[in-house]
């Protein structure tokens, strides 16, 4: 099934549109460009065989080292009929982290996207109500980004060198 999905995706979006193909502990993953997300998810949703019609999860992620594509979104789709899971990943630069919304297709994406916005500052274009969800409205930063260390950096009992890290 996984090979068929890749074949179909590459036929639809071209070899250059579907990259980073891999399998991690049984789950297929592909990476694509931001502008391909909505067409790809719609394609997989409407496909007569694959029927990826369940959005399991949507996770933001931050890679400060990857210049130009620091912020990412992982779409976790599940085809309940075939029992196949798929991760679609896309990345955008941190200066303009704009992704299209998929709330038009999945009602459940509403809060998931709000959560990704809240914690990573990822902007979902076209989202009906893109406001913070778990943090307070007055917060002026996006706390899950890697530049915000969890603990006070001046603490001396947790210096990594002392532990040979």
């Amino acid at each position, binding site marked *: 099934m996984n090979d068929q999905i890749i074949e179909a995706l590459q036929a639809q979006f071209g070899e250059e549109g579907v990259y980073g193909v891999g399998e991690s*502990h049984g789950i297929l993953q592909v990476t694509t460009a931001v502008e391909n997300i909505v067409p790809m998810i719609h394609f997989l949703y409407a496909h007569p065989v694959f029927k990826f019609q369940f959005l*399991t999860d949507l996770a933001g992620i931050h890679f400060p080292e990857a210049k130009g594509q620091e912020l990412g979104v*992982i779409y976790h789709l599940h085809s*309940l009929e075939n029992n196949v899971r798929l991760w679609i990943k896309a990345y955008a630069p941190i200066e303009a982290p704009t992704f299209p919304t998929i709330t038009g297709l*999945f009602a*459940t994406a509403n809060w998931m996207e709000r959560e990704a916005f809240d914690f990573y500052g990822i902007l979902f274009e076209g989202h009906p109500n893109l406001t*913070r*969800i778990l*943090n307070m409205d007055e917060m002026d930063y996006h706390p*899950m980004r890697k530049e915000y260390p969890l603990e006070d950096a001046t603490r001396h009992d947790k210096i990594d060198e002392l532990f040979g890290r």
Partner: protein
Amino acid sequence: MSEIALVNSPNVGLDKTQKGGPYVNELSTLNLGPTHPATHGIFQNILTMDGETIVDAEQTVGYIHRAFEKIAERRPFYQITTLTDRMNYCSAPINNMGWHMTVEKLLGIEVPKRAQYMRVIMMELARLTDHIVCNSILAVDTGALTGFLYVYQWREFIYEIYEEMCGARLTTNMGRFGGMERDFTPVAIEKIQKLLKELPAALKEFEGMVMRNRIFMDRTQNVGGISAERALNYGFTGPNLRAAGVDYDVRAMNPYSSYEDFEFDVPVGTKGDTYDRFLVREEEMWQSLRIIQQAMDNLPEGAYHADAPHYYLPDKQDVYHNMEALIYHFKIVMGEIDAPVGEVYHSVEGGNGELGFHLVSDGGRTPYRLKFRRPGFIYYQAFPEMIKGTTLSDAIVTMSSMNVIAGELDT
């Protein structure tokens, strides 16, 4: 802030003492929560009401947000178990085991059969407590307090079994990577047998009191319904999805921890209303008992944990007398053990649905990114759609039957 305000009232400025005037609709705003006794948790709903009918609802969540995903990025893997306890605290062992299985998948640890069966028993006990809480509280919300008292003592009893297994009752921190921290004690086995023998009678009594009760049926049937299509679109999982008629159960679809060895049914409803959710949970309790019975009957002999010294804490006796055990003990406790690079997703059937752990590891001692897929967070957003057009009292039982748990909602 529980005030009733008039919104866009066309009656402002009118002389209300005058009789026989034209009837004008007035919408009022009602704050349900954040700390309302009937919502069983801290979340707010700002309801727009037309008389007693709900026109719209606006939800506010995050009152007990504790930044678990951020904290997890700084903690060694074994210390994250205590965070998972505090998500759905009504069925903490399921969360613990789900997390252990996620890490075991990443590390490639094979768990012995006995430990897998023990985990199944503990997870099903947790499901029992979860459903006992949800269903008996639903009965309380409709005015039937007695049934709640009868089954709640069995939840208490299951907590005693937890205590026997891990020393804790609510936030259990049960199990370890590679298996369980200790074998079943004779007392634990005795208690599980007692539960298997005596809980059915209590459950029957509860069902006899509530299930065909006219008042209960009137309060719950055709209330807060959702179609299968909308439920899937909203990402429903677990009993709430099955009540709508979709037989998706992670235990049956992607068996983990030897669930494929057991025979059990996946009950489904037809309408997806509050009564169906109640019935599905009731039937799942019977199925849980069935699974526990099978697991106890066929409990394999052997080790209760894997031979994974890098990740599994050695016996305390060995730590005092055995150099290697001391080294591993120190390294594990200090969180000095690196995990392999990888990305893994594992999901278990939690009390409320598919509880998923999406773990990205960069090879360090802590996760690079850990995303919890909390079923409660995902399906609670359908609440306004489900209560539109119903009354306030219907909204209360709908929320109760969805089993929205604030800890899970807000991580």
